[in-house]
């Protein structure tokens, strides 16, 4: 059967309501007051963009919401979406010292959202373009989190930046690929506007390599940043994969972000193949769009799933089902329409390898199949754009962890195309790092990090933010690092 929307506009609005709504002023104040205002706080170190978290929380407690938003967005122009989508329990909140006092960590993500919402809702200008232009220009390929992070940092350093984005709107997965109840497209687009307000030009609907040649960019710009993310979802390689009711997870989620929710067609029995965080987004949203059954099909066991535990909890709470140790063998169809999946059981053999149990095949009825197997690296596209650039074996681009510089001196990279697929906040952090790398390469100047309390006395390699080693008291730093 052809897929149809299953719920009304009102139901859709209720089902897709935010999981964690904005704090009320009272809630924010109570939570902000819990923060100890640590010095050299571990939450800062755990943030890939190095947001001075105690500072922005203290500002909320002090009733300085604009200043709070400024602290966040200066360090991370996508601070509003990161507040919503970051796996905070694995990052800042996971590093909160409150955990050592046997208390709940400060709700950093929700406070961050509270402060950034204030700035965006009231259209307060917290970031300014550079007062002095450097007369140099940079092309950014890809308007996702990495590209936006890079562009915002460069613009504030005085560069002329142009982003080339193939989609209709910039923002990348933030605009098109995150569960609706976590992040709405309008919140992502507000951040795109913020980056634009710094003087960054964004050319949407322009695909580099097709609409404009790299050679032209190289002639026109002093440096290029590549933040092209990942490619298509891996193929299943089974019969029936190309039937019309078989979707890639990101295409399905994009549907939710490009039309009214009650117009999104969905199956009554939906199978989602894979068990990462995107699979969870797909299965929960199918359920919330009206599917009677939404089932994750995963070849390994519950303990092996790549999804974060809190994501798993969301899916369970939504009433999604899980078929562990199961693989799809064939998409079953009638008259060109999906009617089910032929599945087989798996087990771990004596050698510790996963194997399909012979003769275990069975058919489950489904009318929609969503593939969420992870995305391919952009090896092909990267080679097409930059034939001489060196790639890792896994298809990601080789670049310096410190500066983002690739094997081509004028080309810098960051985000999923370089790290193989991590969080939004990693992409922003890498974009920002690359911006500083570009600045150093073009001007020889090193950007002094924002003066904030960090990492004094740690001689080990950078972890967490990994931004340039912040210097609070240069001579003390020298003393500590000199001892090594």
């Amino acid at each position, binding site marked *: 059967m052809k897929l149809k929307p299953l719920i009304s506009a009102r139901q859709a609005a209720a089902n897709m309501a935010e999981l964690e709504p904005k704090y009320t002023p009272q809630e924010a104040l109570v939570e902000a007051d819990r923060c100890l205002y640590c010095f*050299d706080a*571990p939450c800062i*170190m755990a943030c890939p963009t190095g947001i001075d978290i105690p500072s922005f929380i203290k500002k909320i407690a002090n009733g300085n919401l604009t200043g709070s938003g400024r602290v966040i967005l200066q360090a991370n122009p996508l601070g509003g979406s990161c507040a919503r989508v970051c796996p905070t329990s694995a990052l800042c909140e996971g590093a909160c*010292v409150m955990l*050592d*006092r046997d208390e709940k960590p400060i709700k950093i993500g929700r406070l961050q959202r509270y402060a950034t919402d204030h700035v965006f809702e009231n259209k307060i200008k917290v970031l300014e373009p550079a007062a002095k232009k450097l007369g140099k220009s940079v092309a950014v390929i890809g308007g996702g989190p990495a590209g936006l992070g890079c562009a915002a940092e460069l613009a504030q350093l005085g560069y002329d930046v142009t982003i080339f984005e193939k989609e209709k709107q910039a923002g990348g997965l933030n605009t098109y690929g995150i569960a609706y109840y976590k992040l709405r497209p309008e919140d992502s687009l507000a951040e795109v506007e913020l980056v634009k307000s710094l003087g960054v030009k964004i050319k949407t609907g322009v695909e580099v390599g097709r609409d404009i040649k790299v050679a032209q960019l190289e002639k026109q710009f002093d440096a290029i940043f590549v933040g092209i993310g990942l490619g298509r979802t891996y193929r299943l390689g089974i019969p029936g994969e190309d039937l019309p009711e078989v979707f890639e997870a990101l295409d399905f989620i994009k549907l939710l972000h490009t039309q009214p929710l009650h117009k999104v067609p969905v199956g009554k029995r939906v199978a989602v193949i894979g068990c990462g965080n995107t699979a969870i987004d797909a299965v929960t949203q199918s359920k919330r769009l009206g599917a009677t059954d939404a089932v994750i099909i995963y070849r390994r066991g519950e303990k092996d799933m790549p999804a974060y535990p809190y994501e798993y909890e969301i899916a369970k709470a939504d009433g999604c089902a899980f078929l562990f140790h199961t693989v799809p063998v064939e998409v079953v169809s009638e008259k060109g329409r999906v009617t089910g999946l032929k599945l087989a059981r798996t087990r771990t053999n004596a050698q510790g390898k996963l194997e399909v149990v012979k003769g275990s095949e069975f058919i489950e009825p489904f009318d929609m199949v969503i593939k969420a197997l992870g995305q391919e690296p952009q090896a092909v596209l990267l080679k097409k754009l930059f034939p001489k650039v060196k790639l890792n074996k896994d298809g990601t681009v080789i670049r310096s962890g410190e500066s983002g510089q690739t094997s081509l001196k004028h080309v810098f990279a960051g985000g999923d195309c370089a790290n193989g697929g991590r969080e939004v906040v990693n992409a922003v952090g890498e974009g920002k790092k690359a911006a500083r790398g570009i600045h150093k390469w073009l001007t020889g100047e090193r950007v002094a990090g924002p003066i904030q309390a960090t990492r004094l006395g740690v001689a080990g390699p950078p972890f967490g933010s990994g931004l340039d080693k912040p210097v609070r008291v240069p001579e003390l730093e020298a003393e500590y690092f000199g001892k090594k």
Partner: protein
Amino acid sequence: MADLSINLAGIKSPNPFWVASAPPSNTAYQCHRAFEAGWGGVVWKTIGDPIVNVSSRYSSHNIGGIRMVGFNNIELISDRSPETNFREIEECKKRWPDRAVIASLMTDTREHWHDYMKRSRDCGADGVELNFGCPHGMCERGMGSAVGQNPDVIETIVGWVMEAAEIPVIVKLTPNITSVAHAARAAKRGGANAVSLINTINSITQVNLDTMCPEPYVAGRSTHGGYCGPAVKPIALNMLHEVASDPEVGLPISGIGGISNWKDAAEFIALGATGVQVCTAIMHYGFRIVEDMIDGLNDYLDSKGMKSVSDMCGKAVHSVNKWETLDLNYKRVASIDYDKCIGCNLCYIACEDGAHQAIGLVKPTTQGLGPGRLPGKPIPEIKEDHCVGCNLCSLVCPVDHCITMVDVKTGGKPMSWKDYQAALVAGKMKPIPAHP
């Protein structure tokens, strides 16, 4: 079970906890409720010639999420007639003969004082408290703190009162004065039987930055009000000690100022109060708080083997002395329990910026990490040779018993500033070198 009863200058009550003269002691209804909850006494809201109050009377000083750390008011004395008040005192006393009911009084002329003293006795009050403390409103009319700030006037008025006194007289002192001991001595000279302190402190709690008018807001204006609540406890304790240790005073004391629980009360008693009075904590939580005050004080006395409240009265008075008598050779240093340290580094930054640069941030490998999880998280380490033992780090540390101050043997004999100066004059020692 310790004996919690007290006898303050002849006023007896089954426990040392009295409701202070304030909004909670405004009516017989409230006093009944207070006594039902267990309060040992009530000092009636000050009785005087009828006044008119403004609307909007209280304001508060909040810190972080904590409400009413400090509290102020611009309410005047009772706005009910003296007849009503004296009649209700009589009712109360009849219903609660074992509790103390004290009439708080404020008036002007000798004749008026005599009249009020007579009516207080007639209604059966166990004693009176002379309100020489209110710092707002009434002082503009020559009463309240206007009296309490002038020892000669205190002495004169107490003298008038004592001419007509047949029941014990307590003089309530204002803290808005350079030396509260001078005021207490004047009360003594006038013949008072006891003093109570402190009344409220002159204050403005906050300015509304939109209206540019402080709180409490009264039709575009405000005025200074009387400050009280937990924040004033340290000031009250100090003034209490000043009076309790003054050899020229020698009067029983009813302690007041920021008392919220049995511990606060015990500290007042240790510094020389016979009993205590409570207001702000009641205004915040109601009369029910007295249950734990009684319970807690009783358990404390039992745990210390003390038979009665009077056993502990004044026990800490003698440990407070002039600075010049303190031992210059005493030394303590901070010590961090790394099993408890959570790595907030507040001790580090407090010492680095606010004290003596005696804490370093070191790699955790040298000290272990306690329960921390971040492998590179630097942790604080005390530099004992720089530590002056100021206590700051132990005060900012958010974990109980994580940073403790440990006594260090210096080998030097106890030597006060006085001893030191004497030794210098006698040529027995060289000057101690200045701190680098």
